[in-house]
């Protein structure tokens, strides 16, 4: 039974991806394009050479973190649509420190990264507090906070970090996650050391959730608040904590962009979508840290590869369609398992 589950745990996503690509191909044929060419382009877009691989990795980096941000809250029964805003404030804070503080790298870089996490954590604290103390639904609060983050960040970039400019200076080298070495290695891609932080964060989440009393409490509160209270846990504290940690992950994602990819923060006229993609990544990864990493990789590859698809005459949006379908299939794993079981029975 359990071995069965493990088998399914692997089979279902794989099958889903294949199905997604097949349907994608059908759509392409319908709008008479050659799917082979298109998928080749997709592949090249992501793995053509060291550069594209580097770019793919840097695209995966923040997705892992926003994925974790959503997944972590989910474990406590909270739906964090606010990763978007948490990314923005994390980005802003990290770059802010990167610009204003003057310190050797060993201090400056960690400080800047931490600033990002803290800012994100604060942005998670607000809905956490309101939920815990007043029972205000976190979904609305986080949605609203997304917009607030966007506008406030723009305002600060314009009037505090710059004199009415659209984009800040580049951060001090001592706060940058980028590295000559990686750039040379990947023909000047923007790949940076953030990927290590992201992977480490995934391990952290796994550890907290699976191995610590904190995780034990967070999950218990997610499953049954009454029993948690009966068992002497502080329900409010756990709700807040969960949102703060989740926010911190998203804040880190922002820091990755600010300190790694762009090295600056700009006035943005719309959301980064890192947070919203994070929802998909988390759910695709079944809210499991390692699942999240795999899902982020899949997303990153598809999104990066999409850039090449127009060269094969396919609008990049096809990739969104494919990703959506994959999510559907994974979500509907019940039916896939059912079919698989049928086959197994036939087999016997």
């Amino acid at each position: 039974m359990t071995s069965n589950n493990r088998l399914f745990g692997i089979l279902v996503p794989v099958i889903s991806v294949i199905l997604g690509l097949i349907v994608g191909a059908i759509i392409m044929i319908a709008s008479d394009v050659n799917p082979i060419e298109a998928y080749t382009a997709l592949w090249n877009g992501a793995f053509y050479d060291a550069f594209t691989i580097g770019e793919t990795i840097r695209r995966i980096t923040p997705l892992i973190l926003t994925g974790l941000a959503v997944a972590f809250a989910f474990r406590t029964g909270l739906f964090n649509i606010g990763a978007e805003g948490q990314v923005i404030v994390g980005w802003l804070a990290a770059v802010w420190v990167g610009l204003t503080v003057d310190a050797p790298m060993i201090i400056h870089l960690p400080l800047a990264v931490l600033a990002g996490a803290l800012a994100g954590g604060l942005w998670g604290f607000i809905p956490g507090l309101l939920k815990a103390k007043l029972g205000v639904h976190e979904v609305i609060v986080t949605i609203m906070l997304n917009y607030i983050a966007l506008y406030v960040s723009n305002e600060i970039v314009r009037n505090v970090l710059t004199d009415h400019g659209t984009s800040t200076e580049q951060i001090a080298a001592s706060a940058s996650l980028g590295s000559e070495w990686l750039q040379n290695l990947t023909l000047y891609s923007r790949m940076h050391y953030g990927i290590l932080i992201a992977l480490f964060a995934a391990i952290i989440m796994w550890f907290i959730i699976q191995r610590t009393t904190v995780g034990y409490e967070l999950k218990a509160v997610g499953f049954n608040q009454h029993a948690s209270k009966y068992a002497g846990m502080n329900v409010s504290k756990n709700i807040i904590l969960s949102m703060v940690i989740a926010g911190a992950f998203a804040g880190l994602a922002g820091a990755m962009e600010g300190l790694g990819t762009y090295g600056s923060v700009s006035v943005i006229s719309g959301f980064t979508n890192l947070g919203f993609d994070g929802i998909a990544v988390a759910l695709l990864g079944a809210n499991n840290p390692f699942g999240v990493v795999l899902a982020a990789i899949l997303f990153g590859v598809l999104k990066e590869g999409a850039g090449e698809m127009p060269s094969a005459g396919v609008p990049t949006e096809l990739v969104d369609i494919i990703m959506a379908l994959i999510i559907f299939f994974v979500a509907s794993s019940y039916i896939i398992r059912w079919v698989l079981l049928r086959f197994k029975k036939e087999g016997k």
Partner: protein
Amino acid sequence: MEHVIEMLNIRKEFPGIVANDNITVQLRKGEIHALLGENGAGKSTLMNVLFGLYQPEAGEIRVKGEKVNITNPNIANELGIGMVHQHFMLVEPFTVTQNIILGNEPKDKLGKINLKKAEQEIQEISDRYGLKVDPSAKISEISVGMQQRVEILKTLYRGAEVLIFDEPTAVLTPQEINELIEIMRSLVKEGKSIILITHKLKEIMEVCDRCTVIRKGKGIGTVEVSETNPDELASLMVGREVSFKTEKKPAEPKEVVLHIEDLFVKDARKVDLVKGLNLDVRAGEIVGIAGVDGNGQTELIEAITGLRKSQSGKISLKDKKITNLSPRNVTKSGLGHIPQDRHKYGLVLDYPIGANIVLQTYYQKPFSKVSVLNYKEIYNKAKEIIEEYDVRTPSEFTPARALSGGNQQKAIIGREIDRSPDLLIAAQPTRGLDVGAIEFIHKKLIEERDKGRAVLLVSFELDEIMNVSDRIAVMFDGKIVANVKPEETNEQELGLLMAGSITEKVGD
């Protein structure tokens, strides 16, 4: 003899288990037919088959001799079969009327529900069978007893001729039970037939005509109640001798462990439910709190355990003041608590039974060090308790949800007792459990007493109170109105005390 319902050689499987294995039940017109069996024996399943919720793998069902195929509850309803479920099937935010008409609503051409008409109709039926329900009340605001009567109304409103009751008395107070028995009698008088699932042999002896016994999914047979006795029934269902009067040597009370002084507690709706209560529980004695539901028992326990704030007064455990301490600190001070609602408070149903075993102790050595969990230790402890308390579960990794209430309860009791607390509070510890399980749990409580622990037992089951307690504190209107010794009283007197109609014998 005419049979309204015949279930012949029914077989029903669930992944892993055969819940019903070739069971036959025949229901005569106008009889009350008992269905008896241990937890997990297959009673509910069998009835769900009859009600069309499950499809049997084998066997056939006849209604008035006609072979029928009941594929969903609608068909059951049309065949005049109604079911009062073990776990009520009521929509809490709805009113009584809405719940009853749900599914076949009287409506005008606009599709607008004609509530007036429905309420009148329901009022009539309610009066005819003396059900005393208020059609316009919200389910969430009425007592469990009335909720159950709503379930009954639901079946009658659909013109049920055959009513199935699944453990109806498990959730009722003695008063409510008597009312229910009256209702059932008036139902059969009106020519209805009833199948009654219960674990309480007393009830079977009192109201039932015949009794079909099920053991581990198999039909053991049907007996005329008039020709049998409780002991026979019990051994039939368990397959061995069972003793009801849990024998115990007299208590030797020692120092006071729980001391409550002039306690005031408000309930969720901010009204005082505990009003200046005084109570002492000593080491080595079991104090049973007798009382009609709603006289503040729940609030009292929540106050002691720290789940609810007490307005004023003093609670101390072993001379340590625990008034308004957090649940964790109360637990630390030496409290064990078997909660009234095991599914709501007792367990995290989605956690493995093993994880549930350390629900209050996970943060302590050896289960965790520097807040890192040590699963080896946790699951060892779980194995220990599962064995010692004979919790029937595939493994310690099985989610608590998949255990029967009986086994869930054993796990909880094991967990609470294993901490060897100075004070053990047991609220409705045997609700919904079969006699075997009940016997076991009573033994455990008495063992604790003999080990010199103080035990506070709250139960609506008078014979449980009478059996287990060394001292009975009768609770009425938020106060202890009497302290009596079980051997010096009887159910009649207790009933009167609980009803507040006599108030002498106030002790302490």
